[in-house]
């Protein structure tokens, strides 16, 4: 029997990721100031898929991706593919590791993020109508990697999912 607080705690990542997807400007009120160059969505999906593979279902990630594409005028289906792939790569890498320590986790994050961004690049290149800005994607990759330890520390403090 779960208490309400436990249920809220369990669905906290879902709520956060939905809020980010639906409205980035709730957190960063800016479409003229530098945008969210840290990809918080990928950090959350990776972290919870890596430590708790049951947390995000594929259906949830699929619908979330469709919502995101619809809101941000991206090719419909592109974010769904990225989110599902990131989830599956994180689960796969967790299975492959015999011992989980911070170093392993961070390496797994870099690999997952890199592969996901390559998939995103391919999908947007093939199906997107607007030209891609590679430098911005690279900046996004670097800043997301740098910010992962901070976000991880916060999630560890809240959820203790080791």
């Amino acid at each position: 029997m779960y208490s309400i607080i436990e249920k809220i705690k369990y669905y906290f990542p879902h709520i956060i990721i939905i809020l980010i997807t639906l409205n980035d400007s709730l957190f960063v009120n800016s479409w003229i100031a530098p945008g969210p160059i840290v990809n918080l969505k990928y950090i959350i999906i990776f972290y919870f898929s890596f430590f708790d593979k049951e947390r995000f279902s594929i259906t949830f990630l699929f619908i979330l991706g469709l919502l995101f594409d619809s809101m941000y005028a991206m090719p419909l289906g592109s974010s769904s593919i990225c989110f599902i792939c990131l989830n599956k790569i994180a689960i796969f890498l967790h299975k492959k590791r015999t011992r989980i320590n911070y170093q392993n986790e961070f390496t797994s994050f870099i690999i997952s993020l890199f592969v996901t961004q390559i998939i995103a690049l391919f999908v947007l290149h093939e199906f997107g109508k607007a030209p891609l800005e590679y430098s911005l994607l690279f900046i996004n990759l670097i800043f997301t990697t740098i910010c992962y330890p901070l976000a991880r520390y916060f999630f560890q403090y809240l959820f203790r999912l080791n």
Partner: protein
Amino acid sequence: MNDNRLSRSSVPGFATIQRNIEKKFLLPTYLLVSFFLLILDSTDFKAIKVVKGLTNDLVTYSVWILKTPIKYPINVIISSVKNINFNAKTIDEQLNDDISKLTSENNQLIFYKNENENLKRILNIRNKEDYSFVYTKIIHENTNEFNKNFTINVGSNEGLQINQAVVRNNVYLGKISELNLYSSKVMVVTDVNSRIPVTIPSRGANAILKGNGMGGADLLFYPLNIKLEDGDQIYTSGTDGSIKEGLYVGKVMGDKDRRFFKNYKIQLGFSDHLLNYVSVLKSKR
């Protein structure tokens, strides 16, 4: 006894089998559906565009309804903090000065406008296309690593078209990038994919203004023999045929030789993060 054996049996139950089937088939199904949607999205079938437009409208308005109870109090708090002022008297005097200054400038402008129209009549120059304003409300602001855009609450129902300029107080903000039936997405001038033809009247030069995705914009393809200076104003040139000419975009800030990236810094004409209403310039033709 039998019950006991059944409970210890290693044969999976119906629920487990169902979960296994779901696990095996969900992933390829969703990936296939995603690719199918991508392919459909890249085609130009009218029916698909209509369906996509309606879906976008549905999502946009649902999010707007959901967001309003959260966003409204935040906006009220921010605007009330902004409006607290302890120097009201001084500011009032400054504003009065500004009003008298602007009134005299406006009179001068009216004089120049009449003179311009008279000269045009003498030289037999026709006026360029007329535009009308469609006032709209911003219902959503989006920023991600690829795009910077916002959503307005009018679409093709008001006769809007793709690439029409969106302005606020005659300052260029962006252009319509995606058109739905009851909403439209506007690509802001700072978006990495935004490119607009501009002119710098004080130097007699034309250029392309490209958003850098980091909250600013860069000038491209300007004549290399012309050196821009601090305060040179930038306007839309209207050479692309869809954006009205003479809309203020921003001004040049600082010398490019002093900058690391050897590019002019542009201060854009708008700076308010909390814009609520904008207007779309619709051609009367």
